[in-house]
């Protein structure tokens, strides 16, 4: 096979050189594109880079010699570029890929910032709710929900807040309009806690029950840094034969370790809730200082986190009206409830509870 002869070059101005070299480059590319099989690779090499008859050899022989002195530099540069391209094509064809020089020509500034397709953030309350629910789901708890507008019966009476009881004062209630003429137990209100779902669950299902209930609740509280008329709770209920106070302790101790790390310690204090007896408040060792005492835990080393207790027999008595299996002599159970905002504020260092409900992009984007 003989190579197509290299034409003679008569004009050595830049435009002419450009045109001549572009033509050669195109020929080289076309020829490289047509390569099929290793013999053709060798033929391509001989055609362009052959030491005696290679076309590039011809170029240097014919053009460089003929060029006037002032054009030699430019011609040399163009020749070298062409040679690099041909070598690159050869490497590519022989499987070695383009030459480093060829790649260097494609260099980009990798220090420019990356282009980001921004994703949305899970709301810190949703995130915290899901974490808490996940811990109990792993312990075999079902997930339940209930209505946000409740009757007085479910929110108060069946939770052992008798009509007129002072304990009702502790939960300032938002009520639906025009309830005054209705029987007390039917009056509609915004649930002040997720506890009514305990009763709704027991009415539907005989023991055993293991349920965890996330939800939004409302109180007629003035808003400040740590209070909001809207907040969230996670409620839990476990009823079965032989459920004990030590089971309650063990369950919540496990849950707190799962949520805050295995070094978290818990301690239990007597407290009062109408729907549990015995009732307890649970503190965990301060997650900021590990219990040494800091500003966040008021130097006590402990942070109060949730309320709990053994289900009061009076609550079982209400459940037994529909499910007689809730006989407090035969079964027992525990319940617990925790404020999600408080936990989220601690976990994420949020100082104003109102930030959770403002929909401020600057706040929310931190949780991506």
């Amino acid at each position, binding site marked *: 096979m003989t190579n197509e002869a290299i034409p003679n070059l008569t004009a050595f101005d830049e435009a002419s050189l450009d045109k001549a070299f572009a033509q050669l480059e195109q020929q080289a590319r076309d020829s490289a594109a047509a390569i099929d099989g290793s013999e053709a690779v060798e033929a391509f090499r001989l055609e362009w880079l052959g030491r005696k008859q290679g076309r590039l050899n011809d170029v240097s022989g014919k053009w460089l010699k003929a060029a006037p002195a002032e054009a030699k530099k430019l011609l040399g540069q163009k020749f070298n570029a062409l040679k690099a391209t041909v070598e690159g094509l050869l490497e590519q064809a022989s499987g070695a890929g383009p030459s480093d020089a060829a790649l260097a020509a494609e260099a980009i500034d990798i220090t420019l910032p990356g282009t980001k397709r921004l994703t*949305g953030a899970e709301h810190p309350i949703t995130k915290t709710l899901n974490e808490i629910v996940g811990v109990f789901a792993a312990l075999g708890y079902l997930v339940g929900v209930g209505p*946000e507008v409740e009757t007085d019966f479910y929110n108060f009476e069946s939770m052992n807040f008798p009509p007129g009881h002072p304990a009702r004062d502790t939960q300032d209630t938002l009520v639906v309009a025009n309830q005054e003429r*209705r029987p007390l137990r039917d009056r509609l209100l915004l649930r002040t806690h997720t506890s009514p779902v305990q009763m709704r669950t027991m009415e539907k299902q005989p023991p055993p029950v293991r349920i965890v209930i996330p939800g939004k609740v409302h109180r007629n509280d003035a808003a400040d840094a740590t209070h909001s008329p809207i907040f969230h709770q996670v409620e839990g209920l476990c009823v079965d034969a032989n459920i004990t106070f030590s089971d309650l302790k063990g*369950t919540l101790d496990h849950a707190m370790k799962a949520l805050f790390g295995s070094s978290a310690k818990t301690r239990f204090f*007597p*407290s009062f809730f109408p729907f549990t007896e015995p009732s307890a408040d649970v503190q965990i060792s301060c997650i900021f200082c590990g219990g040494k005492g800091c500003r966040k835990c008021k130097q006590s080393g402990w942070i109060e986190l949730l309320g709990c207790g*053994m289900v009061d027999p009076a609550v079982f008595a209400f459940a037994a009206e529909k499910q007689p299996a809730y006989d407090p002599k035969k079964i027992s159970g525990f319940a617990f409830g925790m404020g999600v905002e408080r936990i989220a504020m601690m976990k994420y260092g949020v100082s104003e509870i109102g930030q959770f409900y403002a929909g401020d992009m600057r706040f929310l984007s931190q949780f991506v």
Partner: protein
Amino acid sequence: MKILTQWLRAFLPALPVNDAQLAEDLTLRGIAVEGIYDLGAGNGSLYEMDITTNRVDAMNHYGVAREAAAIYGLTLSPLTFELPKPRPSAKDFSVKIEAEDVCGRFTARVLRGVKIGDSRDWFADAEVATYFGLLEQKKISNAVDATNFAWLLMGQPTHAFDLDKIEGGIVVRRARKGEKLKTLDGIERTLDAEDLIVADHGKPLGLAGVMGGWDTMITPETKNVLVEAAWFDPMAVRRTARRHGLHTDASHRFERGADFNAAPVASAIVASILLAGGGHIEGDLVDVRVPAIEAKTAQRRPVALVLSEVRRLLGTTIDQEGIPAETVEKVLTALGCELTMQQVSALRASELAGQHEDAAWEVTLPSWRLDIEREIDLIEEVARVYGYNGFANTLPAFGEGVKALPWAEAEAAVRATLRAAGFHEAIASTFCSAADAALTAPQPGLVVPLGNPLSEEAGVLRPSLAPGMLTMVAGNLHRDVSDVRLFELGTVFSGSTEKVEERPALAFGAAGALPEQSTLHAAREIDFYDIKGVVEQVLSRFAMDSMYFDRFPAEAGLTPEWLHPYRSARIAADGITVGWFGQLHPREAAARKLKETVLVGEIYLDRLYKLPVRKPAAREVSRFQPVRRDFSLVVDKSVRWESIDAAVAALGIPELVEWRARELFHDPKLGANEYALLLGATFQAPDRTLRDDELQEWHARVVEAVSKAGARLRS
């Protein structure tokens, strides 16, 4: 509430711990000490207490001392006050309880010749001065200080009347509607027939258990005093106090149950302080009791308590012994109960054979602990004083398998899709203004108002998530945060004040640029089609036969008023309306002072959740080369993409696996009412390479179909 450790130690001389340890031990037993303040050498400490509402008996020094006695197994010094012998009276002072259902006991003591003035350090060991000084309790006069002292010491409200202003004697009765009483706060009150009052034979003297009356109050001129110490019914006091908007120390105690037996002791304390300044007692203490109420308070029937029940409910203790019978007896006795051991029934004993030795008691309850009524209440006391942290951490047996909420998967799919599209989740108020509700309610007239709203802006339960979303979007834009992408999953409410329905809903709102941050590419404003894409992606997570979008003529009045009538769409899934979205109506944007284009929408998730979440299913991917054909079309503006799309679909060519509008542009070379559309179509067969002749045939059929739909092939 403030407690002095010095005062506590007066009743517990053998208290073995320092003030810090005492505070810790009390707190761990539910008598919470929130703060400890050192009062200086010899003065002990001041405790700031936080005691739960059920433990009203412990909201005073003697009550806290009793708890400490129980913790350390000490004997509490009894409260006794020696009074001078009374001078005889011609006739007992007359006390009559008419309202026998709500006044259980009324004691009256007549003191004559007392001197009202400064309570100097007259009282035994100058206790009033010392304790009041440490408590920073202001001294007012010996009469007031005496009742305050009794209150701080034992939590029993008492009242002192100017005896000479009482006509005849005392009658405890319900008020007659319209009767007038000026109370100690100087307010003239009109009484209701429900109000429980202390009266004399002519007029009301005070609101029983709440506040005394102005006219019979002690003045510097008072010579003769009547000391009242009584027991009133919690509900009756609560109703009276509430009706008159009063909350006093006395009402606080009575509402939560006072000690039926405390009246004579409290009366003696008040009398001894008053008499320290001179004067004498006349006649014996008049003590009228209502047996029916005494039977419900001081003389309650004993409660049965079984040791095995204690163990059944409390479970495992760290101490391997568990809770022995002696602990139960010791704890309850220290708290004022009397225990009588009972024979354990043979059946029960055999049931428990080999486990523990069971024990059973009849427990007589102390008069000051009305919160203890049942066996469980006694068990709680045992657990409390034993110490909650003495119980082991055990776990109950695992329950049945985990079952998530029916729509948990759907909810997670919706959330994940929106987050992937760059939307942040937000939570807005549950409430909105009546005006916003009227604007956005899908069913006008079914808006539920609140009886005691937080504000007018939050007067009703939100019927739609749109008002909250608009508030949040506007909040960002007004703070110069120009790129907004938010969504909320929440409950919306409809119905009446009789019955409220709740449904899950999704709202989203956006303004500003697309969620891309780039140095090299210019930011593009988010538009209708971006939002439509998000909606399509959300809906595509659910299995449905059809999804379409349409718009209604203005006169139909179907488009929500908050949406731009020509730049909004109804979303239909399987023919059911599942939501609306589009550009915010310019009128509403202006009303909210928004200059930016805001895109907003709402999806009724209850309807969407009726559809199953689409389960991914793999299809064989064809190994044969696909062929793409582009059709450059010219389309009249009146022709909608929907008809071209439908025409192509109607061809039913199985090998036409995908087609879409790839590009749409206005070309000045075309007619004014025309635009250019590039339709891209992909042909592929699962089992063979496509032949040229079939491709040509399909090409022709596509051209024919789109021509019928109003488009022509560009020459």
